[in-house]
């Protein structure tokens, strides 16, 4: 469909030929490419920015707004803002109470995660110019942050090593042949397995031995731990819940429905309230563990709904065909139904993952866990930084934006690779 040349719209009349040019009648799409660049640019500007009088007005209004936002942002970032509140407190914001002597655990974990991202990118996708630009921009941002005010040269080098790991992993896998073969299957299995193992491995590295306990997970590190635990736990809980809700056995479907609807009925803030006040009698344990349980339970209900939607979207013929070839119910679910349902439900599940990533900010509102936003609140209570509230909050927002934006881009890539949404 998209390979065909665009059909010219009625209002798009071919331009009169430039003087001194031979009159050769070509199809319009070829005509355009023949004309010199300056003409093409002028035409693009005319068509996209100044098509008519009202269109010009719209462009001017939008341009004014954009210019206002840009000048405001530039003025704020480079002139009026005092970023010392961030640069001075970068360790507090990044890892808070994590013992500085054990910082190597953080760097090793980051390097592992970055390597895995690189491996996954190389296996299932490839990096375009925009991806390189994004990595470069984020890298420059982080390095600037750490180099500012000195005394963090080593952190910059560690971060650069982590980025090098990312590219190393990427370059390693992207060169492997892509055509379907046993080798390729094994490559995908290994990378997928490594990714699945990464969370426990990172937790092991962070928490085993030394003087580090779960309580030391603090600042941005806490966000980075809580969100994946919530997402993975949510999917693991969501699949049986969705199957249970769709089950033909009344007792199972009713209880699963009740669970899903009750969890979705109250806001996450309310469930964190439960973690603090009510769960102590039921599961006890450290608050950070309870927060993880609540994140997983909460996400699970939403994931279950998305998977159930996908189950309902499957044509009945799929079930019937599976039955006809004599698969048992377990085989049907495992081989026919779930793979398709999960594939359909990837986009909303990634949306939920982004949402839970953003919602990790809520733990410091109710629970005594200091994640990035909580530590930003501490930073602006320090002596010299009381007026720098907006700077601190803008910084926190930007950090969350970077990760969430990356997740949404990756999900778009997965959607395109899997052909989801195409009909």
């Amino acid at each position: 469909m998209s390979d065909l040349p665009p059909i010219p719209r009625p209002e798009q009349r071919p331009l009169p030929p430039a003087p001194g040019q031979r009159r050769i009648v070509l199809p319009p799409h070829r005509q355009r490419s023949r004309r010199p660049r300056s003409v093409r640019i002028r035409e693009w500007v005319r068509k996209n920015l100044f098509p008519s009088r009202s269109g010009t007005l719209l462009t001017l209004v939008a341009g004014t707004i954009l210019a206002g936002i840009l000048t405001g942002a530039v003025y704020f970032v480079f002139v009026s803002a005092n970023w010392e509140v961030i640069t001075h407190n970068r360790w507090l914001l990044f890892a808070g109470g994590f013992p500085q002597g054990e910082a190597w655990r953080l760097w090793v974990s980051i390097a592992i995660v970055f390597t895995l991202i690189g491996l996954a990118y190389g296996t299932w996708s490839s990096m375009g110019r925009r991806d390189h630009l994004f990595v470069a921009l984020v890298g420059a941002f982080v390095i600037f942050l750490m180099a500012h005010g000195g005394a963090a040269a080593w952190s910059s080098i560690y971060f650069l090593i982590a980025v090098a790991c990312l590219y190393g992993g990427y370059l390693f896998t992207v060169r492997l042949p892509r055509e379907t073969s046993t080798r390729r299957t094994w490559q995908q299995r290994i990378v997928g397995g490594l990714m699945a193992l990464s969370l426990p491995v990172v937790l092991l590295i962070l928490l085993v031995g030394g003087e580090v306990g779960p309580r030391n997970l603090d600042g941005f590190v806490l966000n980075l731990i809580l969100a994946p635990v919530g997402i993975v736990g949510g999917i693991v809980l969501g699949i049986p819940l969705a199957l249970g809700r769709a089950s033909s056995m009344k007792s199972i479907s009713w209880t699963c429905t009740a669970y899903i609807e009750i969890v979705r009925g109250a806001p996450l803030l309310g469930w964190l309230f439960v973690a603090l006040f009510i769960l102590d009698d039921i599961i006890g344990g450290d608050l950070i563990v309870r927060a993880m349980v609540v994140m997983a339970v909460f996400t699970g209900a939403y994931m279950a709904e998305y998977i159930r939607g996908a189950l309902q979207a499957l044509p009945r013929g799929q079930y019937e065909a599976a039955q006809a070839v004599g698969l048992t119910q377990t085989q049907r679910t495992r081989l026919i139904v779930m793979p398709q349902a999960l594939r359909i439900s990837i986009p909303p599940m990634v949306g939920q993952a982004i949402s839970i990533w953003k919602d990790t900010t809520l733990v410091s509102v109710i629970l005594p866990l200091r994640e990035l936003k909580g530590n930003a609140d501490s930073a602006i209570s320090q002596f010299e930084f009381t007026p720098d509230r907006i700077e601190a909050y803008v910084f926190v927002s930007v950090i969350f934006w970077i990760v969430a934006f990356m997740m949404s881009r990756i999900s778009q890539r997965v959607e395109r690779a899997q052909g989801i949404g195409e009909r």
Partner: protein
Amino acid sequence: MSQQPSTPLPPPDPVPLIFQRGFRRLVQQGAYIGVTALLAWYVYDALNLREFGFGFLDDPAAFKVANQWITDIDGVTNNRITMYLVGVWSSVRVIFVAILLSTLVGVVVGVARLSSNWLVARLAMLYVEVFRNTPLLMQVVLVYAIFLVGAPIIQEVLVIGDFAFISNRGLAIPWPVPDAGWWGVPDWFVGVWVALLIAVGIIAMTVRRQRQQLERDTGQPHFANRWAFGIFAVGALISFIALGLPVSIDRPIVEGTRYLEGIVIRPEFAALTIGLTLYTGAFNAEIVRGSIQALPRGQTEAANAVGLSAYQRMTLIILPQALRQMLPSITNQYLNVNKNSSLAYAVLYDDLFRVAGIIQNKAGHALEMFFVIIVTYMLISFLISVVMNFINARVTRVGV
């Protein structure tokens, strides 16, 4: 062989019990119910429900609740459940306004994202990508912080045309109040006017329907909407004058450090509502864009072919059809607005969640308070669903 009907088929081997479908289901369900009951019993046992009860909600509240509108209920003399209801009312206001505004933002930005104007489309995309990918909590606290820092303090209040004031204590605007009018009637007289307005409204709607029917029958334009609006406006004006101006506009004034008269939109309310609007608006915009793109291209082309303007094409052809597609997702977003309104906890707005927290802090009974909270949120969600289902039923009544 098979042509010998006289030979009776041997009776089938009895299927062992454990392979019988009914039996297996029974066992599975039994096991499941057993495990669930065990879990439920464990939770029940751990929860220590001996003191479970809602009597504490009837005790005096002994705290004040800010951000009241219309209601002016004093927390020192009233009981806790009354103050909780004040909090519910505050939440409902935020949810209602945020839903309206976020829909508006969503439609405008969603259409702008598909604009043929490059700059407008980019601007809309910038908005969506920024606000969809940052935490709502940060948006709310940032809007609040920016308003507190950016707006002038009350001593240097910004006056707009002598009738509105902006300071970081809020935006004060004129507000209609019942008045004695020409005839010196009591306040309840305004009710008569409202009743008259409703009557005029019904008449206007009847005329509209008749003219629409005419339009359909004859194919000639009968300007149903213009007629209805005209009838309503004229009727409202005439009844207003005839009843002796029972409503007057209260202009705000600044006295010392506070606003008197008029109505004040408080910064806490504004921050929460704007935060919710911007955040939900970004999601709504994506939903609107998606449903417009899902329409067949032929719709646009047909509209072009019959010579509709871009505005007509959008409002008459594209949006009404896209509406059916987007309603379920939009409803989901409205339910999210309901739940996200609990972020009032992070700005200084006394919504139901914060009031419940205060009560819990004073009286304990966390389980009961949580029960109350979840039931309230579910009720509001239920209300939103009912309204949206009604709209959905109306929109999808006419088949394509």
